């Protein structure tokens, strides 16, 4: 029932938006109530799974420890972003940047986007997972091209083409897995569990090839280098609340099928094969992101490259194995909270300074004091400064790396250090210095301050005290990889 609520709530909100097309307040609050309902359902699901290890709805939908963590993250990020969207879109409407029709479209597409993500998280069938992730691509194309500028349209095309090619490759990998497994499964509806149950009978050479297609295919969606070129464009061109969901939730959802197939593949060919691939792509991605961050002229692109870096760190955690798996999962939680907050705050900066260029943002602390303080907190969190949780997760991953791959770890540490200095250089330029122009001091509305504040507060709380249910979910999720 709870899983059904996750899926039905955004569908109802979409229908309400279509019916009350001219009543913006109804549209806003229906989206908010839908996201709030999803958050409540997600909390209950996580609590249930923490106690019972899984939660199923018929054979078609299931939440285990791994997906329960992601359901929780997605619902939190989704709720905060929808709440922020209310304030952000109202401000854009007031300035005449957008009309009522465009604003309405944003809510419809956000609701469909959330629906597709939760479907991908809860389905038990690999092909429905693929359909949902493809649906997230389709529902976000027009969110990326939202402002109807040449750069936004270009970003949307790159996003559509590169992700579609990636997902086709992932589909090829999925078909190969199914082709191997189907002769041993006596069921019309194939699930992750029944592929895993027959994994010892699968051909290792074929499964190895299939996993490569899966990793490259879904890895495109995660933004792993060298398939990442769409990510900085798409995440920077989309409206800030959408960028928050793209970075804070969607990247994790792209990683989920890779992890599911990893569990199956490890049973067939052993852990070394997938771990080596994860380390290879993780190192390339983190090194590329570290050098790119130095050269960024746009703060939203800066945050986008930071997303590539953090997903690489997560991948490295799974690649190093052992403690790294626990740390990788932990890192996903902390990164989602911090990154989505940062994108929401970047929206405030964009509204005030009307420019994405770092050189045009000077003295933000004077004009947007609350946003700036939160932005600095987010920067410290993202760059792995203690006592934030990202420091702990990165530390554990590096520790795991030293134990298993001591010659790779210095490269990772160097890249992380480079990222800190690159970020510091850019952020300090933006936050401090003499205010220019005649902008008025002050935030826009509570809608644009409270959501990122909540996300960062949760991040700080989780950094100091990780609730027992989440610890249980993490431990049980790690067990999935050690079968």
């Amino acid at each position: 029932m709870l899983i059904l609520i996750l899926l039905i709530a955004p569908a109802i909100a979409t229908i309400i938006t279509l019916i009350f097309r001219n009543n913006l307040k109804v549209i806003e609050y229906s989206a908010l109530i839908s996201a709030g309902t999803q958050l409540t359902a997600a909390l209950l699901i996580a609590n249930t799974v923490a106690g019972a290890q899984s939660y199923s709805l018929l054979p078609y939908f299931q939440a285990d420890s791994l997906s329960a963590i992601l359901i929780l993250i997605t619902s939190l990020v989704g709720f905060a972003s929808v709440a922020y969207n209310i304030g952000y879109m109202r401000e854009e409407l007031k300035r005449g940047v957008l009309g009522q029709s465009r604003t309405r479209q944003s809510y419809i597409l956000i609701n469909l986007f959330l629906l597709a993500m939760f479907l991908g998280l809860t389905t038990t069938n690999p092909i429905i997972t693929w359909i949902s992730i493809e649906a997230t691509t389709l529902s976000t194309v027009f969110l990326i091209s939202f402002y109807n500028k040449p750069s936004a349209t270009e970003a949307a095309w790159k996003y559509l083409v590169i992700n579609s090619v990636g997902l086709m490759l992932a589909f090829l990998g999925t078909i190969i897995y199914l082709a191997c497994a189907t002769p041993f499964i006596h069921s019309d509806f194939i699930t992750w569990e029944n592929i895993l149950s027959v994994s010892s009978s699968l051909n290792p050479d074929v499964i190895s090839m299939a996993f490569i297609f899966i990793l490259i295919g879904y890895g495109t969606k995660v933004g792993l280098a060298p398939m990442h070129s769409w990510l900085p464009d798409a995440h920077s061109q989309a409206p800030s609340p959408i960028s928050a969901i793209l970075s804070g939730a969607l990247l994790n959802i792209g990683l989920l099928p890779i992890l599911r197939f990893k569990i199956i593949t490890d049973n067939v060919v052993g852990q070394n094969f997938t771990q080596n691939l994860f380390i290879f792509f993780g190192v390339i991605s983190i090194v590329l992101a570290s050098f790119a961050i130095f050269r960024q002229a746009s703060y939203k692109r800066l945050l986008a490259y930071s997303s590539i870096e953090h997903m690489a760190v997560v991948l490295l955690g799974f690649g190093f194995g052992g403690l790294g798996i626990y740390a990788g999962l932990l890192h996903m939680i902390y990164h989602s909270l911090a990154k989505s907050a940062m994108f929401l705050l970047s929206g405030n900066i964009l509204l005030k300074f009307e420019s994405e260029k770092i050189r045009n943002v000077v003295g933000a602390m004077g004009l947007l004091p609350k946003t700036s303080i939160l932005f600095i907190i987010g920067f410290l969190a993202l760059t792995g400064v203690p006592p934030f949780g990202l420091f702990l997760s990165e530390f554990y991953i590096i520790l795991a790396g030293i134990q298993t791959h001591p010659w790779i770890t210095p490269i990772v540490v160097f890249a992380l250090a480079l990222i800190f200095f690159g970020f510091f250089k850019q952020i300090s330029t933006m936050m401090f210095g003499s205010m220019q122009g005649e902008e008025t001091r002050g935030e826009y509305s509570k809608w644009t301050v409270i959501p990122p504040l909540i996300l960062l507060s949760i991040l700080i709380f989780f950094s100091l005290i990780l609730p027992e249910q989440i610890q249980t979910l993490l431990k049980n999720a790690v067990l999935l990889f050690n079968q």
Partner: protein
Amino acid sequence: MDTNLQLLSIFQLTVFLCSVLMHILRKNSSLILIYLLQSLSVALMLLILGINQGSISLILVGMITALVKVIGAPIFFSRLINRQQLAISTTTYLNTPITLGFILGLTALVQSYIFAPIISLFPQFQQLMAFSLSGILISLFLVINRRGVFSQLIGILSFENGLVAFSTLAGIEQILAVEIGVLFNILLWIVISSVLITLIYSHFGSLNTTEMNKLKD
């Protein structure tokens, strides 16, 4: 040779040859015709297998595939290129002889030991699977090699046709709802990419991807 197997062979080869022809033809209208032919071959493969196996869901999927990809998509694309007057597809990164060399290389790659484990999974369709995989890689190469967004669109759809042909021969049959879900996704993809093409043309005055250079680090 079994009649059904002969027909499957003919249609699979048609899918493969269409993916090769797409590299040679430059006019957008010709690309649409080749895509129509390719989609028809895929739909007929589904129908033949459905009839052979007595599977109502495969027959239904074949019919819906024909409706969406053989009738719907070509009409949609024809209206798009007529409205925008996009007669000629744009240039390629590699010239025709090198392109054909790459196509030969990709076909040879699939026949090599690298893909042998996958192909050997299907003993009764080995050569057909090889052509199917080759068609998939050649379609991917079309997306990479062409500078025109319309060609890239057709390349992705050709890739998808190759995947459907591959999964059909592999005997991957899901419940009807899942198959329809995949088709619905493709239909949405066609609509969305077509709208995006219209937007691209209105912003850039061209469908050449080299004109889209607003975003740089």
